[in-house]
């Protein structure tokens, strides 16, 4: 059975979809079979980030309602042949998903794929809860900012209470992925530090993704950042995070901003 990983956050717009695409592609590039499932029914975007928006015929809701087979709805990536996408429906709403239907789809996927990444919608309601329901592991995408950290804490509470694994008394493996990290602002003490975030959430760190123009560029091109240009700093951070997800022990390097003259004068602490 493959591993089911939910990418979640509570707060919207923190980088879940970007991270699902980047991590999924990075894992698939190593030869693992990977399925990305878009749970953002009504507001799908993973197809766009993956550059597959013109190839969507069927979607998750069709599969659950039996109007399409799973194999018909899966879209194979044109760059990495072990990477597949199951898009969300654009026209339906989240009530079109049933827990039973989602369970069946996830079960089938995890019998065929090594990894199933579930891109959660924002919020803590039904859609987000269905996305996490059958997960073995969770990537909690967090920006170093108060409202994002608070929402991550709520999501961690839900992961420990409302997932099938938690209900069986098992532990769901949780990892914090800090994204949009701005080393310069952290050095000036304007942004929560990585240590602050980890201490508050008391959850292990999967990686730190810097704020980067390359992420926007990759979205514009319709390619996960780990495929479009695997050498830029955001891509490298995602590739390392993917390795850690696969169990490799790699030290996390905090993006570092050299102290400027003024910072030194004022005795500010660097990140």
């Amino acid at each position, binding site marked *: 059975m493959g591993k089911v990983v939910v990418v979640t956050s509570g707060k919207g717009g923190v980088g879940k979809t970007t991270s699902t695409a980047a991590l999924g592609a990075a894992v698939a590039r190593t030869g693992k079979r990977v399925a990305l499932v878009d749970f953002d029914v009504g507001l799908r975007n993973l197809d766009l980030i993956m550059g597959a928006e013109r190839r969507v015929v069927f979607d998750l809701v069709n599969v659950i309602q039996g109007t399409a087979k799973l194999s018909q709805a899966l879209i194979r990536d044109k760059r990495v042949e072990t990477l597949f996408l199951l898009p969300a429906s654009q026209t339906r709403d989240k009530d079109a998903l049933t827990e039973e239907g989602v369970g069946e789809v996830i079960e089938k996927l995890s019998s065929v794929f090594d990894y199933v990444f579930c891109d959660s919608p924002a919020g803590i309601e039904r859609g987000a809860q269905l996305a996490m329901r059958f997960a073995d592991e969770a990537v909690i995408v967090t920006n170093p900012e108060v409202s994002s950290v608070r929402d991550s*804490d709520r999501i961690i509470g839900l992961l420990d209470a409302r997932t099938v694994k938690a209900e069986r008394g098992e532990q769901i493996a949780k990892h914090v992925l800090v994204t949009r990290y701005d080393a310069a602002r952290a050095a000036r003490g304007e942004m*929560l530090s990585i240590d602050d975030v980890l201490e*508050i959430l008391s959850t292990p760190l999967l990686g730190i993704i810097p704020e980067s123009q390359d992420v926007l560029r990759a979205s514009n091109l319709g390619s996960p950042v780990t495929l479009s240009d695997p050498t830029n700093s955001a891509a490298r951070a995602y590739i390392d995070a993917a390795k850690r997800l696969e169990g490799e022990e790699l030290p996390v390097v905090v993006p570092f901003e050299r102290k400027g003259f003024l910072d030194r004068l004022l005795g500010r602490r660097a990140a």
Partner: protein
Amino acid sequence: MNLLDLFKRRGSAPVARERLQVLLAYERRNRSQPDLVSVLREEIMAVIARHVQIDQDYLQVSMDRGETMSTLEIDIQIPNKSARPLAMSA
């Protein structure tokens, strides 16, 4: 703000960190059981509604959550005409 303040000014991150720690300690405590204050608020409202029909506009509910003590303030204005005569018992 004088020049000294400007030089003494620290980043806002430590404040953020402290506020989060206090808030999350509270939210985690109340996660498993429904927030006592909101349960009280709802039940009090239900009791009032059994006897008096009141408009939402006549109702003010405010809460001040302190670290060791919270106050729930409920201010209800009852228009005299809408008060149903209550059963008079000794």
